[in-house]
């Protein structure tokens, strides 16, 4: 495969159909070695299909895959000895304990010692519950065991599908630190996720997929350049005046009300110049009761994927009105408010 030097994972022209439905329509991924790569896409975009292809669970109709610099096809299952994966929900025997499940899995694929099993139980905080049957585990505990299972063979490439699913906040922080540590030691972490905030905090490189094709890929800082936003909250009686003043700063169309958040305005503006926004409003006699800044991966994601036809069967949630949402020019609300800094 040309142009794949230094990549831990590369796909070229990857295609997959399920009957008449196209799941992947020529996917070209380039995942550099030693990074955390965030793989984003709406429901049905082809994320899980990609994960299954990368682990040999299904086979492509066309295109090629390279894992750790070498081609990966039907007869190349040994490549997976250096790959760890957590795909969809963690899979375990419910009647076995956590420890027995890991030992059972360790008997497959690359040779893995019992000591490694114990290390991983310690790492994911399950040592005290290792003797308990998995059927009694919470979703978060199963997820932690799934992450331990993915790490069994000390993989050079880790493929994780929604790894934060079900984890408590402390678990998410610990997982983030573990994955950052793995990347720092030269391993590559490929994460598929819907939690954009998590990806924004964790990933070095992001790939966004829509309708089975890659629509954007690159270092996260580069992708978020020009995606800076400042949000202010003003009294509802002063919204019109504030919009007029801020239009002068951000230009026409640069200021939009935040849907569902009364009094909040979103301004496309470099976050480092948030003080200019505050000053302009204050000079005009409009005082803000809240001010936040950030680079908005969600805005970028929605802008890139909102018009893409759904490639999958999962459909799209349009809300109670059944109306397709407009691609926003700013953040969609506090829950979608991602990223750094901010003050009120």
């Amino acid at each position, binding site marked *: 495969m040309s142009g794949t030097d230094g990549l831990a994972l590369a796909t070229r022209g990857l295609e997959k159909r399920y009957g008449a439905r196209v799941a992947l329509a020529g996917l070209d991924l380039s995942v550099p070695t030693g990074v955390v790569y965030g793989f984003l896409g709406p429901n049905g975009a082809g994320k899980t299909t990609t994960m*299954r292809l990368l682990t040999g669970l299904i086979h492509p109709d066309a295109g090629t895959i390279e894992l750790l610099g070498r081609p990966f096809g039907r007869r190349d299952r040994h490549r997976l000895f250096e790959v760890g994966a957590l795909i969809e929900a963690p899979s375990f025997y419910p009647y076995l304990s956590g420890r027995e499940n890991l030992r059972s899995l360790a008997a497959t694929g690359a040779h893995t010692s019992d000591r490694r099993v114990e290390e991983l139980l310690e790492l994911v905080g399950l040592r005290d519950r290792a003797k308990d049957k998995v059927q009694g585990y919470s979703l978060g505990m199963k997820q932690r065991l799934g992450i331990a299972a993915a790490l069994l063979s000390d993989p050079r490439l880790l493929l994780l599908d929604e790894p934060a699913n079900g984890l408590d906040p402390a678990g998410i922080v610990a997982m983030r630190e573990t994955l950052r540590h793995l990347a720092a030691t030269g391993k590559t972490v490929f994460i598929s996720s819907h939690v954009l905030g998590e990806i924004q905090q964790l990933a070095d490189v992001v790939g966004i997929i829509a309708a089975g094709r890659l629509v954007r890929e690159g270092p996260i800082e580069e992708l978020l350049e020009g995606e800076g936003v400042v949000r202010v909250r003003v009294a509802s009686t002063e919204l019109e005046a504030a919009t007029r003043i801020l239009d002068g700063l951000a230009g026409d169309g640069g200021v939009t009300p935040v849907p569902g958040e009364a009094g909040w305005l979103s301004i496309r503006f470099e976050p480092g110049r948030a003080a200019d926004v505050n000053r302009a409003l204050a000079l005009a006699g409009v005082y803000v009761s809240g001010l936040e800044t950030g680079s908005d991966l969600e805005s970028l994601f929605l802008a890139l994927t909102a018009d893409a036809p759904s490639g999958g069967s999962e459909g799209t949630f349009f809300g109670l009105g059944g109306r397709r949402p407009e691609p926003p020019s700013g953040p969609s609300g506090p829950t979608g408010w991602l990223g750094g800094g901010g003050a009120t």
Partner: protein
Amino acid sequence: MRLLVATLRKLIRRPATFITFGLLVGLMALIFLAVGATAKQQPSATAREAALLLVTFPGAYTFVVSFILGLGGLFAVIYGAAIAGSEWTWGTLKAAVARGESRTRYQVWSLAGVGVMVGVGLLGAFVVGVVVALVGAGLAGVSTAGLSDAATLGQLPELLGRGWFAMIEQGVLGFTIATIARSQLAGVGVGIAMYFGEQFATIFLPDVVKYLPFHAAGSVVATTGGEFGGSDGGQLAQLDPNAALVVVALWLVGALVVTSLFTERAEISG
């Protein structure tokens, strides 16, 4: 080898293993103890004789083995289907394949594990069967002198070996069905339907049915006048035991090939 050890560890801890074994020996114990306790209360001399025969050694050995191989065949189908189906239902096959394990190797070792468990179950059930037959004999007040009958004891190893082989074939059939169905429930359901379907087929296809997997398995152990394992009471034309052995081997190999091909080609999802 580590895969076989891991498979056995899984199967030993699996509730289905104990439930299947418990049902088999429980039913057997119930029958032998009930017969032993009520044999002398039978209204007619013929019925009394027949009941006493069941718990009188060495003939009791025959009935113990017949019972195990008859009902055990059905249980082997269910057990094999449960083991294979759960690998798909729980996603554990997916996890192994994603670690680079060979699909065929994984399935073959899983089947080997089922075969070992079936063998252990067969021996265990035989021991329990002999013990409950002895208790039944005690309840019926008949002599147990035939317990050490040399001729019968000499036949037992071959008989149990053949029975094991036949039960493995039936377990593998259940395994294959569940693999194709990719579901524990569907595998068990279809396996049971096939088992009884074959019994019904004797009405319509009397000349063909002796070659079908469950009847052939019954014929494999019919070394002493068709008493062992056969569920048709010897009314149907049966294969010669050695010919049946070949037919069972063919079914076994065929099921293994189908399992392997299907698993290799399957798109694993869910």
